[in-house]
């Protein structure tokens, strides 16, 4: 099995090399003479896909058959016995460093196969060279898979297995990973990572064949949105997992590996918007090319951070010097290649950039790009700082940057659709923004009321001796974020309403069917507006759930009837359920009735699970979800006196983050789905 796996990975590698050579050679011979070779290059791309598909199938089969002959299966096999155990068996494939790299390479071969399938009937020079670049990237990954620490098909040491085939060591999937969100988090993230290699490959292809037309952008535009969407979903799932599994009450800790996944997402926002300008105005050409490279390099930086051990993180896998140099070379090489190409092809890639005024649509796209790039570079530098002997930065530093940049960004995002190309006419702009401003004032007033009655008292509770000056900054940030979030929501809603009304009047349709038409016909545009709407909701949720968390610890007797109170909620202890599962995992669950104003509002069942095979304990948190707040209940354990140590957090507005996240995903999916009906 191990040999077969390595064999097919090796065949994939050979196919990748054949494809690159055939495509490059075919181009040399010219379109006529080189046709057979070029076609070979396309077929070899399918060969890579076939080889890697067999490899990943072997690994998957090994997990389902619990084949302990593979060391990777021993280390990451699931021990779960719940109804989701099949999912965790599957998740073993990407649960560790070796399998996840193979999985990534496989996804990359799927993207390459899709590109080959789409462009095989055309076999234009641009596509041929881009496919060669894509297979070149693939080759790097496949070589990395043969570095021993990255190889998923290593044989298990004989001493780990007993005579009856039973496992002699305690090993298995990290129990923290045995959660539905965590099984889906890596694959969605990796779809995003792998997909973002495609725009980079086509940018390089465009440079190689010296074609600065919008052709390459039109080919990769939707694949890029698709990849960016999945990257976003992956980040969101990771946040959900961190929230419900890690038990510290938050969802984003600015941990190096979290940051690494955020970086390509940020530059991806910039990249997508520069594609719009490239396509529609013929501008931002060099910029778009550099953004594909920067985004791709940030994708690699993620795996570089986790694999090289340059930065200490909860996520970091074992250090490996070979991977360090290999991925570093890949990152530096990609940036240099793009930079060199842009310089050499400078003349033909000169864009028709027209900045006639600071308030034009072009400018808002420009600042969008600048802010995203600056944010990504700053986060990258702060994250990598300890690797260069610098300081390690905590959340305070990240927040100090993220909050003002985020507020400015959402503001630009909110007004951008109301601006005109080249020059925005003041009177026209005012007529558009008038009603959204009224709505913004109403929303902001409501949120300010919430802030004064609910959020500010929480801030006073956790910071009784808060410096008035810092509180003023805190207040200012919270209220401005509420205002720009409201503005983003109002503008997006207004765009939908006026769009539908205009269409209804022009076509004689009812308002609702007109609304349906603009959402499902002008999908790029309405999907974009919906994404903006979601971002507005998210920023409001972020203010509540990151700036105003009430965190209370309580110790109570382990006798039924004992109670404690947090933020108006009374928790009445009912009893303990304990259970040992067939796999020897031990589950402890506490039962609480949760009362508010003397009325029962729900039950909370926080607990702990002791995993036998892995020799680890995991907190099992209980969350009560309300529209305006989550009540997050953690059982931290018993103390010497057998009292129960409880931790309760009230997280205001956190549901808004998840809801806005959902809206953003639906919006992006709508924008990506169809072939473009008209230039949006």
């Amino acid at each position: 099995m191990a040999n077969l796996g390595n064999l097919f990975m090796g065949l994939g590698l050979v196919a990748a090399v054949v494809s690159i050579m055939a495509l490059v050679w075919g181009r040399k011979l010219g379109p006529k003479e080189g046709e057979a070779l070029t076609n070979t290059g396309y077929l070899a791309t399918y060969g890579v896909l076939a080889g890697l598909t067999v490899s990943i199938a072997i690994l998957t089969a090994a997990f389902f058959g619990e084949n302990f002959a593979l060391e990777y299966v021993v280390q990451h096999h699931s021990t779960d016995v719940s109804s989701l155990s099949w999912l965790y068996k599957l998740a073993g494939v990407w649960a560790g460093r070796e399998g996840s790299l193979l999985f990534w390479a496989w996804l990359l071969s799927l993207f390459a196969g899709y590109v080959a399938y789409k462009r095989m009937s055309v076999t234009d020079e641009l596509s041929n060279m881009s496919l060669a670049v894509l297979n070149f990237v693939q080759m790097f990954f496949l070589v990395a898979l043969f570095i021993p620490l990255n190889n998923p098909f290593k044989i298990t040491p004989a001493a780990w297995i007993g005579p009856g085939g039973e496992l002699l060591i305690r090993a298995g999937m990290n129990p923290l990973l045995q959660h539905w969100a965590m099984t889906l988090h890596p694959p969605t993230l990796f779809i995003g990572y792998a997909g973002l290699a495609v725009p980079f490959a086509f940018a390089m292809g465009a440079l190689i064949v010296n074609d600065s037309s919008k052709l390459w952008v039109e080919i990769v535009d939707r694949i890029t949105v698709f990849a960016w969407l999945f990257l976003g979903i992956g980040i969101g799932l990771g946040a959900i997992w961190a929230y419900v599994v890690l038990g510290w009450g938050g969802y984003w800790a600015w941990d190096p590996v979290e940051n690494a996944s955020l970086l390509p997402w940020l530059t991806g926002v910039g990249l997508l918007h520069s594609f719009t300008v490239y396509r529609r105005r013929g501008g931002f050409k060099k910029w778009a090319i550099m953004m594909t490279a920067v985004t791709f390099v940030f994708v690699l930086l993620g795996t570089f951070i986790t694999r090289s051990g340059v930065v200490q993180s909860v996520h970091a896998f074992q250090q490996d010097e070979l991977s360090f140099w290999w991925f570093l070379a890949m990152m530096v090489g990609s940036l240099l290649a793009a930079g060199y190409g842009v310089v050499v092809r400078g003349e033909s890639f000169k864009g028709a950039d027209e900045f006639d005024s600071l308030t034009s649509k072009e400018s808002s796209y420009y600042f969008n790009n600048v802010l995203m790039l600056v944010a990504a570079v700053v986060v990258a530098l702060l994250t990598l700082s300890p690797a260069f002997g610098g300081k390690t930065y905590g959340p305070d530093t990240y927040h100090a940057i993220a909050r003002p940049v985020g507020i400015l960004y959402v503001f630009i995002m909110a007004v951008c659709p109301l601006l005109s190309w080249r020059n925005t006419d003041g009177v026209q702009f005012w007529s558009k923004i008038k009603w959204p401003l009224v709505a913004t004032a109403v929303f902001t007033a409501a949120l300010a009321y919430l802030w004064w009655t609910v959020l500010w008292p929480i801030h006073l509770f956790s910071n009784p001796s808060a410096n008035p000056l810092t509180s003023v900054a805190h207040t200012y940030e919270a209220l401005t974020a509420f205002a720009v979030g409201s503005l983003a929501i109002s503008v997006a809603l207004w765009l939908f309403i006026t769009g539908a009304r205009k269409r209804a009047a022009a076509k004689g349709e009812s308002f609702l069917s007109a609304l349906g038409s603009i959402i499902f016909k002008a999908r790029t545009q309405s999907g974009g507006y919906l994404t903006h709407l979601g971002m507005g909701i998210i920023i409001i949720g972020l203010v509540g759930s990151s700036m105003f968390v009430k965190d209370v610890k309580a110790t109570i007797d382990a006798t039924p009837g004992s109670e404690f109170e947090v933020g108006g909620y009374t928790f009445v202890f009912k009893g303990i359920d304990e259970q040992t599962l067939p796999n020897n995992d031990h589950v402890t669950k506490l039962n609480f009735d949760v009362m508010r104003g003397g009325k029962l509002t729900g039950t909370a069942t926080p607990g702990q699970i002791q995993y036998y095979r892995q020799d680890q304990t995991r907190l099992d948190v209980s969350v009560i979800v309300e529209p305006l707040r989550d009540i997050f209940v953690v059982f931290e354990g018993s103390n010497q006196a057998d009292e129960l140590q409880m931790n309760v957090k009230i997280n205001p507005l956190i549901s808004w983050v998840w809801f806005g996240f959902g809206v953003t995903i639906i919006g992006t999916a709508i924008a990506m789905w169809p072939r473009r009906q008209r230039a949006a």
Partner: protein
Amino acid sequence: MNKRARVRLIGVTAIILISVVAIVWGVGAGDGSYSRSVSDVADNAEIAGERVRVTGTVVPGSWDKKSSPMRFDIRDEGETGGPQISVVYYGGVPNTFGDEVTAIITGTINEKGVLESEDMITKCPSKYESATGALTIADLLGQGDAVVGKSVRVTGYVANGSVRPPGGTVRFTITGNGGSGGPTLDVFFDGAVPEGMGDGTQVVLGGLLDESGVFDAVSVSLSDTEQ
């Protein structure tokens, strides 16, 4: 391109960049922490009040997970003696915390030299340890009853075919001599044996010899000669 618009564009870009740099500079100075080793901060009066990030190994038995706040000692990674510092930790205890775990603790050293922290992440212990200074089996057994119940480090080779599943009294046996021959020692250990341990590998054990002659191991590492 309109010249005035260009100047304004560059101007606004510069303002954004300068503000971001200023914020990082201003806030980062107060927030960030330099990485220090345990020996850097132990008995170093100059460092009191500074925000530091210390990486060290949790000294076995120095902690009680159920006390609040939790107190424990750490020493430099890969050392078995040498300087230690005490830590008072106010945050939630990570799931993977335990003896010999590598803890990365961010906090402030108070005037008593104690590291006060609310921020800790843990990594699994390095699976390699130096055998220097560890007793051989012959040394250990040669000391007779005097050594029973005392915390010691001992090194030996895993006897061929001796590794059993956890749960029993004897997890594996070590010998003095490359897998077979020489004096032997049965080892009790309920934790996870390190990846890569197999017949004939040299291991370094921390723990104590009980009255029945079984070595009750708290930690099992591979000898660094196995790397």
